[in-house]
């Protein structure tokens, strides 16, 4: 077995959703070399070779894998935390076992362009978010300086679908 153990380090209430939890866990082995294979096996993941890290979503949980540890946001409870750790351990070990038949993918998922983000925004330039224009807000969203909940207009019912798309686009950034 490549990865023998994942050890839970801490558990805290989630910042993104108050009813959920986030946690951090430590790997017993360095998994950097497996990441390009994970990038191939897990669709819609985001690989960053510079950190290195591999981020993906599993049923709404946001899983960030680093060389020697992982962090997870939006887990349900401690039972879920252990369940996710089991899942990640199995995923890493199975990917490692099959790596000779997997083509590694070193491609880093590009951040969405500011214009792509802008296309989902209300485009009212109302300044309620503190920025003069929606395109400026879009750029700040990409750098993490601003967050989506700072746009009051997006809370309106008519923007529900666009808000969801923006959440998906920005989540793996």
């Amino acid at each position, binding site marked *: 077995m490549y990865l023998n153990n994942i050890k*839970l380090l801490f*558990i*805290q209430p989630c910042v993104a959703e108050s009813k959920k939890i986030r946690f951090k866990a430590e790997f017993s082995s360095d998994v950097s070399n497996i990441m390009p294979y994970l990038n191939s096996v897990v669709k819609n993941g985001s690989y960053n070779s510079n950190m290195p890290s591999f981020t993906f979503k599993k049923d709404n949980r946001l899983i960030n894998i680093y060389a020697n540890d992982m962090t997870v946001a939006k887990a349900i*409870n*401690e*039972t879920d*935390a*252990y*369940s996710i750790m089991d899942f990640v351990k199995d995923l890493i070990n199975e990917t490692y076992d099959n790596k000779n038949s997997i083509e590694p993918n070193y491609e880093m998922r590009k951040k969405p362009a500011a214009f792509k983000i802008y296309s989902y925004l209300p485009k009212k330039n109302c300044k309620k978010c503190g920025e003069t224009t929606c395109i400026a807000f879009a750029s700040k969203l990409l750098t993490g300086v601003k967050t989506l909940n700072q746009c009051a207009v997006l809370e309106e019912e008519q923007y529900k679908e666009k808000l969801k798309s923006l959440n998906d686009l920005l989540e793996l950034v």
Partner: protein
Amino acid sequence: MFILGIYLDNAATSFPKPYAVMKKMMEYMQNIGATSGRGAYKTAIEADRLIYNCRKMICKLFNGSDPAKVIFTSNITEALNVVINGFLKEGDHVITSSLEHNAVWRPLKTLERDKNIEISTVCCTDEGITDYNDVEKLIKPNTKLIIFTHASNVLGAIQPIREIGRIAKKHKVKFLVDSAQTAGAYPMDVQKDNIDILAFTGHKGLLGPTGTGGFILNCDIDINPLKSGGTGGDSKYPYQPDYFPNRYEAGTPNVVGIVGLGEALNFIYSVGIKNIRKKEEEIIEYGIERLKSVKEIEIYGPKKSDKIVGVVSFNIKNIKAEEISYELDKQYDIMVRSGLHCAPTAHKIMGTENIGAVRIGIGYFNEKEHIDTLVEALNKIQNKYM
């Protein structure tokens, strides 16, 4: 380990427990001690891990699909109460066996009295054998639940749950199984056996400590929680959460008990259910043969080791069951249980509802020598009363 006397009441609770179980519980109490799902310090995280591990092992043993759907309760009676009281509504129809323990029978009779539910019992032979075809005949449009014991705690007779589960599935009726006498001693698989909810106890065949048990959810079902209270997280939300297992687990769990149960499951894995069943079957067969040699004995149930679990009930003519068990304990340090065994239903089938019976409960740590000593003692008691 020195054990005083011969313990033959494993149907009530198993004894002894594997040494590793006791050791693990002691280690937990000495070195960890924290509860689970509350604190976030190292020992609390370790307690979380041990509890999750136990859920996982229960899942593995019964082929459940999700450890989060393994809910711990204080015993199987509580598990059965949660499901029966939380699921059934006014006017619902329930089908059950003629052999149910009071843990099923009393909640059902109480709902019949208080919420107007209808109960149909499936007839069986006087040995406790049920024909599963009789279940289908009782299904009606308002049938919501079929509840069956996997094996009678008085007659030992194993019930045809796989076939009953198939019938339940065909008619889209939920199927709840009481595995009190079979979990850990007889192979079970919630998928292959078509079980929607499996109630289990930790302290009998699973060889864990008392105060443990629970149920496995293997279907989508709306069950109102029996208890509300602290679930460790989400404290601002004023109601029981929707997610599992917390929805049905309020308050501090029996952490030390669940830790012990986890270790007991390790033991069961290391031996293997098939090997446990093989050993018990041999002793059951030997026990029945030897008991037959006791004069004036009447043995109830199928009297065939492949048709029963390690539960054999009997009476000896002209000697009260209570007197037999008293003498067995006083003179010979042999522990058995006499009476109605919380299952007047089964005794009605046997025709012993007014006199009860003596019951032996064979477990994994019994040996043929225990049966020899029992039979010798019964013969001596018989001579004394003649």
